[in-house]
């Protein structure tokens, strides 16, 4: 939670929180995990789209609009609330794709793809990561061979969030060794989607295979060979959203664990009265405030297109990705045996944080990015 919310942002945050609390409390998350193939009913996502969940990174000219003039900061509020409630829904992939279209697409591409995405009728996802390669901007190997003025895509993308529901993909590929992004529709011959197992109960992932998929020049997003800055930009957006999601989780879990320590008695005293535990709560409060501070700083840098964004998203991802799991597991410890049961909600939060920390670069990967920014070059293991 950034401390400097405008009144409109505060209202937007509250509206989102109330909608989610009413329609998708944790009991509902558990229910949808069992019976909804996508992890959520489509009507629920469309309602969220009406609240603005899909339009914040899209310019007003393209049919979108922000609450505060800082679309990413507005969107991180949604991501934080969704962390608090471990909500389902393709928030990250749809918004990254919406930003890609708004910022880089031709008018024809925008007209074809944006309206459905904005209304929630259609879902899309960003295909950056590849099997056995970290989801980092410079790890693309999927090829797009030229054939006349067409391109033939061959390779696999995984994990791709919400790919089974997606009507189209933004795919990072190499054309003559240079990164290029394509908009590929899911029903294009040669595209196949295989659902994957995943740690999160309601965020679904899949492997998308491209088996000699032929696309025309109208599928190219921006310029052939010119996608490196696009990918960096989308990557920064994605990581900023992951960080907001993780701080939403962590802030909430710490709060309910603290409350539990007042309610739970041992040897005739509340747990909260034991200094050994108080000191751990003090550390967790410190780390959580630091997580909130660095998440907000990263979001502001990306929103403002600051030259510091490259480093600050990785600082936030590295710090939060390391600390959030530690805080959550210590909260399990403070809950005692109930904390490791299926019925307690703690594992839902741990699942969410593990997912956020592990995709689009682990803390280790992000420290490597930071070091490269500082002029140090290590041996990459791929």
């Amino acid at each position, binding site marked *: 939670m950034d*401390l*400097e919310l405008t009144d409109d942002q505060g209202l937007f945050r509250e509206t989102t929180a109330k909608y989610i609390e009413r329609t998708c409390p944790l009991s509902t998350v558990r229910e949808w995990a069992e019976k909804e193939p996508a992890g959520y009913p489509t009507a629920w996502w469309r309602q969220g789209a009406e609240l603005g969940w899909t339009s914040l990174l899209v310019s007003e000219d393209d049919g979108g609009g922000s609450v505060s003039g800082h679309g990413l900061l507005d969107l991180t509020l949604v991501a934080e609330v969704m962390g608090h409630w471990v909500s389902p829904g393709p928030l990250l992939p749809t918004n990254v794709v919406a930003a890609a279209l708004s910022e880089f697409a031709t008018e024809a591409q925008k007209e074809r793809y944006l309206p459905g995405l904005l209304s929630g009728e259609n879902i899309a996802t960003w295909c950056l990561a590849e099997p056995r390669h970290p989801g980092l901007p410079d790890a693309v190997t999927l090829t797009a061979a030229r054939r006349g003025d067409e391109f033939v895509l061959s390779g696999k993308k995984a994990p791709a969030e919400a790919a089974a529901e997606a009507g189209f993909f933004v795919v990072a590929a190499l054309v003559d060794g240079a990164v290029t992004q394509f908009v590929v529709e899911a029903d294009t011959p040669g595209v196949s989607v295989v659902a994957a197992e995943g740690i999160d109960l309601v965020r679904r992932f899949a492997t998308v295979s491209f088996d000699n998929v032929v696309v025309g020049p109208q599928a190219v997003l921006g310029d052939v060979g010119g996608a490196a800055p696009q990918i960096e930009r989308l990557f920064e957006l994605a990581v900023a959203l992951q960080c907001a999601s993780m701080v939403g989780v962590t802030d909430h879990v710490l709060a309910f664990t*603290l409350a539990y*320590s*007042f309610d739970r008695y041992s040897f005739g005293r*509340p747990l*909260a*009265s034991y*200094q050994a535990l*108080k*000191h751990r*709560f*003090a*550390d967790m*409060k*410190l780390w959580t*405030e*630091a997580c*909130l*501070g*660095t998440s*907000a*700083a990263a979001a502001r840098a990306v929103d403002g297109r600051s030259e510091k964004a490259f*480093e*600050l998203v990785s*600082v936030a991802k*590295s*710090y939060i990705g390391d600390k959030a799991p530690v805080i959550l597991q210590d909260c399990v410890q403070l809950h005692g045996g109930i904390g490791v049961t299926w019925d307690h909600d703690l594992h839902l939060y741990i699942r969410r944080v593990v997912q956020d920390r592990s995709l689009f670069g682990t803390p*280790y990967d992000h*420290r*490597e990015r*930071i*070091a490269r920014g*500082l*002029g*140090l*070059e*290590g*041996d990459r293991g791929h």
Partner: protein
Amino acid sequence: MGIETAEEGTEDLEAFRLRARAWLADNMPRLKEGQTNHHLMALDEMGTRARELQRILFDGGFAGLCFPKEYGGQGLTRAHQIAFTQETAPYEMPVVLNIPTFSILAPTLLDFGTEEQKQAHVPKMISGEEMWVQFLSEPSGGSDLASLITRATRDGDVFILNGSKIWSSGAFRCDYAMCLARTDWHAPKHRGLTMFMIKIHQPGIDVQQIKMSNGSNEFCQEFFDDVAIPIEDVIGEINDGWTVASRLLFHERDAVGGGSPYLSGSSGGRGDHGAGRSDLIELARASGRASDPRVIQLVAEARVNDLVGAQLIGRVTHAINSGALPGPGGSLHRLYAATNSERQADIALEIAGAGAAVWEDGDLAGLKGVEFLQRQSGSLGGGSNEMQRNIISERVLGMPREFAADKDRPFDEVLHNASPSRPT
């Protein structure tokens, strides 16, 4: 108005920055290649040099940026101070004055001093004429400051001071001290204390430097032998010294954590508006390990910890000012700075490798080895990490207070340590 937001008519930030940049280039001596103000602080003549440098800043109108104009400051905002500190990076700066004179004792005097006391001393602090130090800790007590036993006995218009204080930084080069002493032994411990200002170099006060594990002798111990303090030199109310000391400690947490608006210039170390630069990359290169993936992880981790620390200061400071966090929230960045400093020392030791143990004269690796000897200093001074964790859990999170055997009991009925004997 105030330190956070500019009054109408305050100089525009960018205009100020450009004016400061030009003035610094014309007036301040540049650091030599590889030198930092952190290194310069170790020099014996630093006190004298700091006063000279501060006088230049004062005459140029760049001293006490966030202090009120009526006490010799410039009445500018924190943002101006941060910009100024960024601009001073290439220059020699009197950073030794930052803590405690500017960021702890001057603000405390502004909070509790009489108008006469403030007019007599704050402008001289800002001009570099007076260096101040705090006499709080005693050999008999560490974290339990309020159980101190240095006594000030009323005798007409004076108090007579006897006892000993310890862990005062650079007292030998300072002019005045704020000294907390017991004035009522029958009251509970927090209610029998009084804060005084005392002139350090006078008969009856013996200042001795303490040699530390890394060889430095910054810290001092003082012995008081029937020192007469005029009653006008009481700060705050008689027997209400704990209120003054608590505020002083608040300013100290803010200063040590890097959140104080009165810090000017960077030591090139950490916790100072993030303007300092880490020398770990230089260390990695000097150790021949700059392409080792393990070393790369450590350098980046150190960088992450420093940047997050600066971001945390911004967040916590804002939260305290807006009321989202209570004042003791300052313990958050204080604890962060201390634990980060421990981690940075570990990382430096690891990257230095064998060079931390055996080195050629002047090697950075050797410096890191010696610095490791003082790894805990930031976690001890100004309230230990354990005390900060008590403060955060009890006063930020609202958890139950620790049991205190001396609560509300007259101090002379409470068990406490004996007065130390003076070394011969």
